[in-house]
């Protein structure tokens, strides 16, 4: 049996545990003095998204009450899902952890595995992006192209993509599908440098890159040397007008819709086009800033204001201009929340297209049969 002193100690320990468990949570004030805010980037430390996160966070602190320390952290894995899942499931609820990255809205629509969040449930500060994607091809493709329109008659080449279901792969494929150009799609190059290496090696002849990648990897190298051509660019669709935006900083590179009209002489249509339009409306925002769903509203509104103020800061804009040659299109909190709620209005034609492209239907067929 327990001695009386041990009983007393056990009672004391039990009482302390009860007190700890039943203690009310301290009220969370929206003042971050002395705290550290972690901006979680769900991709690699050397990549374009992290560079943009660093550009954004450089001045973020001065717009947050208490001027906290703001640091960037990378949680890599699962094509970005690991980091997003983390913030959704285990992220801090006091505003000191904010995701900076793309939400896989297409993956949720298509039922891709590994996604454990509902976008609308996040506390959303806003989103940014709208940078165009650019399609690049080797200039010697199919015997060579002298002017961009020559490409429309080529076929049988290889298009490279990064990861299954990734944005860049889809943006590589969709315009070719819309144009009806037959090509073989090879996915699995993991990152832009490996895609670029494959293009140099002539293992692939076409690819798509995001705006930061275009400026960082291609303009000063393969395009300058004449070994590759920026074929066309894909801008985003303005949610309010339903029309394509037309950024002007990628000079001399036609917009896809104009290219299509020129070589096909009409308006695009079909499953691939519907898919492309949906994609250009939702997936083009790559810099969502979201917090754990249980983050208090007062903290959310304070950080939403800081988000907007920081994007309006000329220093932040200048920093983005330096790396991306354009400032991103910003969607503030309430509008972004709508975007995160409406994303699943994907047309059936687009769904058909994506199901084929992802290859999940074929890959999981055997399992379903069983």
């Amino acid at each position: 049996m327990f001695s009386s002193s041990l009983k007393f100690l056990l009672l004391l320990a039990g009482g302390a545990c009860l007190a700890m468990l039943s203690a009310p949570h301290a009220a969370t004030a929206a003042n971050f003095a002395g705290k550290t805010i972690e901006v979680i980037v769900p991709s690699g430390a050397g990549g374009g998204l992290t560079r943009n996160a660093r550009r954004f966070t450089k001045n973020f602190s001065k717009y947050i009450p208490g001027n906290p320390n703001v640091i960037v952290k990378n949680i890599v894995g699962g094509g970005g899902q690991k980091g997003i899942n983390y913030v959704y499931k285990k992220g801090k609820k006091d505003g000191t952890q904010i995701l900076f990255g793309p939400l896989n809205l297409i993956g949720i629509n298509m039922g891709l595995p590994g996604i454990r969040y509902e976008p609308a449930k996040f506390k959303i500060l806003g989103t940014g992006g709208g940078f165009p994607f650019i399609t690049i091809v080797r200039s010697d493709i199919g015997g060579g192209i002298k002017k961009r329109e020559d490409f429309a008659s080529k076929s049988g080449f290889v298009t490279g993509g990064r990861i299954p279901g990734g944005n860049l792969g889809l943006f590589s494929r969709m315009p070719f599908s819309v144009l009806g150009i037959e090509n073989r799609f090879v996915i699995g190059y993991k990152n832009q440098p490996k895609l670029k290496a494959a293009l140099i090696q002539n293992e692939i002849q076409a690819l798509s890159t995001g705006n930061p990648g275009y400026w960082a990897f291609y303009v000063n190298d393969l395009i300058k040397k004449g070994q590759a051509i920026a074929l066309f660019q894909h801008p985003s669709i303005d949610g309010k007008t339903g029309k394509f935006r037309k950024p002007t900083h990628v000079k001399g590179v036609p917009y896809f819709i104009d290219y299509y009209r020129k070589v096909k002489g009409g308006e695009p249509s079909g499953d691939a086009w519907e898919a492309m339009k949906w994609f250009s409306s939702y997936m083009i925002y790559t810099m969502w800033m979201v917090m754990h769903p249980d983050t208090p509203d007062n903290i959310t509104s304070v950080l939403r204001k800081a988000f907007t103020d920081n994007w309006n800061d000329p220093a932040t804009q200048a920093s983005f201009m330096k790396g991306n040659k354009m400032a991103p299109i910003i969607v503030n909190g309430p509008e972004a929340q709508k975007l995160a709620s409406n994303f699943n209005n994907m047309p059936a034609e687009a769904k058909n297209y994506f199901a084929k492209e992802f290859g999940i239907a074929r890959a999981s067929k055997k399992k379903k049969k069983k």
Partner: protein
Amino acid sequence: MSGAEVFDALLTGLTSVLAWPAIGFMVLGVTIGMWMGAVPGLGGVLGMILLLPFTFDMEPVNAFALLLGLFAVTSTSDTIASVMLGIPGTAASQATILDGYPLAQKGQAARAFGAAFTVSAFGGVFGAAVLAISLPLITPIITAFKSGEIFMLAILGLAMVGSLSGGSITKGVAAALLGLLISTIGSAQTVAIYRYTFDQDYLLDGLPIVPVVLGLFAIPELMELATRNVNISRVSKEQAEGGGMLDGIRDAFRHWWLATRCATIGTYIGILPGLGAAIVDWVAYGHAVQSAKDKSKFGKGDIRGVIAPEAANNAIKGGALIPTIAFGIPGSLGMAILLGALLLVGLLPGPDMLTTDLPITFAMVWTIVIANILAAIALMFLAKYVAKVAFISGHLIVPGVILFIFMGAWLAGGTSLGAWITCLVFGILGYLMKVTGWARPPLVLGLILGGISENRFQLATLAEGSYAWLSRPIVLVIVCLIVLTIFLAARGIVKNRQTKDTQEAGEGRGFNPVVSLPFSIIVLCVFVGSVYIAADWDIRVSQFPLAVGVPGALLALLAIYIDGKALSRARINASDRLSVLKEASQQAVLPKSMKFISAIIGMILVTLFVGQKIAVPLFIFLYLMLWAKRSVSVSFLYTSLAWFFLVLFYDRIIHMQFHQPYLASAIEAILPDFIPIWILL
């Protein structure tokens, strides 16, 4: 550019690096780099991530003096943990432990350091020199090595398994196949389907290499120190003969040709995007074993086993810098970060780096050269003091190292206790492999090369639309090298058997059939289970798991047969079954080892509830008090220092993402307002 212009750029690069404040930034980078390399689980990539924000507004030369100064030297200082503890300081020094740690056990750690630091400096300078003179060769090399060629190089790396298998080629190859199978965890390469993830986020991207390697190598060594109550050095200071720093430097000069060959291997592996630092030390080690006339001492403290990987892993950084700056194609993760820095300071990779920005390129080359020399000199100064650690009680080393390896595993593994569980599971696996004659290096090699092999095989086949790439000239040359490598390895094993050298100490040579038989059966179950699951998948997803699972199962069956035969021989010689079991248990220190594992499991469970900042110091305190039988004051002082370091370094300096425990809110509520929460959570 004319020769005079290039020479001018070379001099401008040198003067800009030696000018203030660039030289100051370099010294700072080298100092931080030496620390990041020496602590297991940190490494150059983390160091560069930490310093990256500070380079935002710097002049390019200053920024690269800081970053490259740091990055260039981590694979010099990582030798310290590899030699002293048998734990790879970074991914680039895994192979160094095979002979470095046995040298420390013989009391010759200083000799290993002398050789390692000398060839590290040589390798670093060699890689940088090759970088400077081989710029015109890069385009043809990069163009020639497509996915098919990279796949074949990965297979060539795997062929080194023969040289790393120790006593049993069957178990060596089976271990490599197990590594390859483990590499298939996570997303399939070309389809959005996850394999063997069991719905766990932690496994979505596969198992990170650092927790696996730390577990495989560190935990068994710590268990040995703890359970056998020994020092790192198994001989006293007085008995350790010929183990001084100067002996090591002399060794390095004596084996200059090996060092040059391995530095060349390192540089050219660095140039090829996609292979990277994690493989180069193994390839260099394998080369050293295969090219040696007398192979019998490898794995038991052969200085050539230290020289080869250390020359290669420093040279790779010069090689990897070439495609990064010339094409924007980083050859490794560290170079990817450097590329990010390049872009952040406003420079663009491409021809400009070789023309208008050539002085900056040469400044980077000089940074690598000077940093390597500085680090080697500084570490040689420090090494004689570090080497003395080999003679202090193992009980004082275990708790501190537990802190480093578990926090290192956590850093690499991210945000859940998955990293610790991985580290522990592979620790148990490493311990079992050690006592059962299953060599661990083949498993690591399989794990590193598995993803590359599968990815590049599928890319090559899909891009060609056929297997025609198999007939490309470079592919055929590499196939010949693979055949030659396997032949040399087989010849080496036959020679070793003829000299009856297999029962001595060294990786994969310990053999305990009583433990080995059930272990082989478990391995068989893993292979069979994986094949059973994979049989249900689409061919693009299942191709690789089936290709390694089926032969793996057959080899595991063969291992069971070998173990069964050995066991029956042991039973014939023994008086009864019980004595066989007892002897095996004593040989493997089973009861104490299980206690040690239980203590670590306890630490993980406590972490679930109260977090690392309480659980790890608690483990350290209890270990010192109850296991090591140290006084309360010593235990308290040691624990306080460990806790201080845990909070200061991992939280306040590098802002590691600590585990959010179940009792977080309760601890937060009970803590007085004047005590900051980061003290405990």
